[in-house]
């Protein structure tokens, strides 16, 4: 089992993503955050069972305060500083199909994928394959 975070300022999109992730039955917990700051606060407070993969983070791009890219940069900076969690898989989930947004996402070491909204069941399958390809934290 794994944990997932949905970071999105649109409640309806968090709802859709949550239901999609729930359907696959692979997640022990699905957390929601409505902006980058709330997400970072939550992530570093939560406890992860030893030997569990992930967490998986579905990151929206356009959000108030900090956009998705800024949030990922801040996350990476904290991971480097604190040394944990060392196995976060981030995928961008956005309604933007702009090439520059995709290119920017591809340049980020933490970001493993880019999905356009709305996410479908195929997208969730692909995210799970990403997670399965990851080594166990150790």
């Amino acid at each position, binding site marked *: 089992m794994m944990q997932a975070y949905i970071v999105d300022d*649109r*409640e*309806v*999109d968090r709802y859709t993503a949550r239901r999609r992730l729930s359907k696959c039955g692979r997640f022990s917990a699905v957390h929601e955050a409505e902006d980058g700051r709330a997400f970072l606060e939550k992530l570093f407070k939560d406890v992860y069972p030893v030997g569990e993969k992930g967490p998986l983070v579905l990151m929206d791009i356009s959000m*108030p305060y900090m956009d998705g890219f800024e949030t990922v940069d801040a996350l990476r900076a904290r991971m480097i500083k604190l040394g944990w969690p060392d196995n976060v898989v981030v995928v961008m989930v956005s309604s*933007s199909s702009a090439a520059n947004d995709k290119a920017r996402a591809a340049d980020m070491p933490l970001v493993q994928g880019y999905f356009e909204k709305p996410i479908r069941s195929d997208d969730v399958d692909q995210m799970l394959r990403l997670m399965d390809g990851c080594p166990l934290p150790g």
Partner: protein
Amino acid sequence: MFSVQSQMHQFTQAPEKMAWPDMINERGEHARLQGGPVTTFDTVELAFELSPVAMLLVNSNGKICLTNRELDKLFGYDDGALIGRVIETLIPEGMREEHVVLRDAFAVLPAKRRMGVDRVINGLTATKTVLPIELGLEPVCLEDEAMVIVTALDLRARMAGKARIGAILDAASCAMLVVNGEGRIEFVNRAVTELLGYTPQELLGETVEMLVPPHLHSAHQVYRRSFASLADQRAMAPGRTVCGWHRDGYEVPVEGSLNQIEVDGARSVVVTLVDLSERIATEKLMAERARELERLNSDLEQFNRCVSHDLKAPLSSIAGLLSLCREDLVDGSFDDLDSTLTRAQAIAERSIGDIEELLRVALTAERGIQSAQVEVAALVTQLWEDLGGRPEELTLTLAHRVPFDTEVATFRSILRNLLSNALRYRDPSKPALQVEVSARQDNTFVDFLVTDNGLGIPEDFLPEVFGLFKRLGDQGGSGIGLNLVQRNVERLGGEITVTSVLGEGATFKVRLPVVREQET
């Protein structure tokens, strides 16, 4: 010319040095110069014949005693025809009487007059045409009689040349002036009047500082002198942007170039001034246009982001919700179906309002809106009802002066957006929403305040609140509302500010200028 002058010198050395009264004896007769050369009429006649310059000899009564062929030709008379006539024959009628007086005065206290000082005198020819000439006067004592040798120089060619040069310089599009060694203006062309307002008559003979802004006068005098002292007579100052001083007392930006010239041993400076006010105005306009374009581009970029996110996002959300519904239907699980469809419907309805708002942003910039009288209380109440607010949630405290005139559509849009925000960002943890619209006024401003007890705005989001497509949280809206409000308030010449305490609510203050006509 030179040889004649040296010949003539024989008769002329003395009078220059000696005072004339010494040469008059007790009987009032002119005495022969003591120790001077003896000159005879024959010698003078010979000199006249050899001279290429027009000459005549006149006695103290103004009678012409001798002319040479050059002079007869110059004035259009037959050889010797002038002999025996008074000198005033050769002077235009209007000046004759005055000349007799001058001539008598000259006879008492004669003074040599050299040529080359550019003193133009009008002569009169046999055919009664006026002839510009320059005269040299040489008092001599000839066979015991005081006489004057007059040399006349035809200035027609020189004046025609000057006029031609003047016409050419007048045709030049840039202003030109010639300044002599003392800093006085010797020549100006017509463009100077267009540029600096002065006529040539007002400038000729004045110091050039007249055309320099007053606070630069002293500095300019120093520059002028140091420029004049440069060894190179062709010294030239390249074009520099400086300020001229207009006759009406304002500065004119010009590009000034200086060229030093030497004519007949005297140095002058030719000043060329090119009017820069148009160029500077054009540059300013171009810069403004560039900034405007930049602003439009940045708006367009934001518009694109808005379309790709804020308008596309609701459709993506709806698509996502509908795909869940279909799967639920296929699975035969109907529990969430109604709530999921209701969500989709709500998003679709909100999007309609957002698109209308976006179009309004694009359109208000283009069309002008007429000012009219506004019943603020009725307008606010109606808007509140239209937006779905309950009457008991709204309080009005309006103390502005009536009638209140403004662009109705613009003002309505401002209020509609502020009221809609108050509804949208209500705090569900509080028992009731309270919105107060108040107005107060002094002689300069009228303030409209919209205060709510909603969620409030986080302090660090306050500076961004009026940014295009900034949107807080998930309360719907396109992120255009407050930007539109700000634009509309600015359109009415006012300003909007916001204060808020997170968790307590927010107050938006719209300050509009009081239009003077309303008071009278």
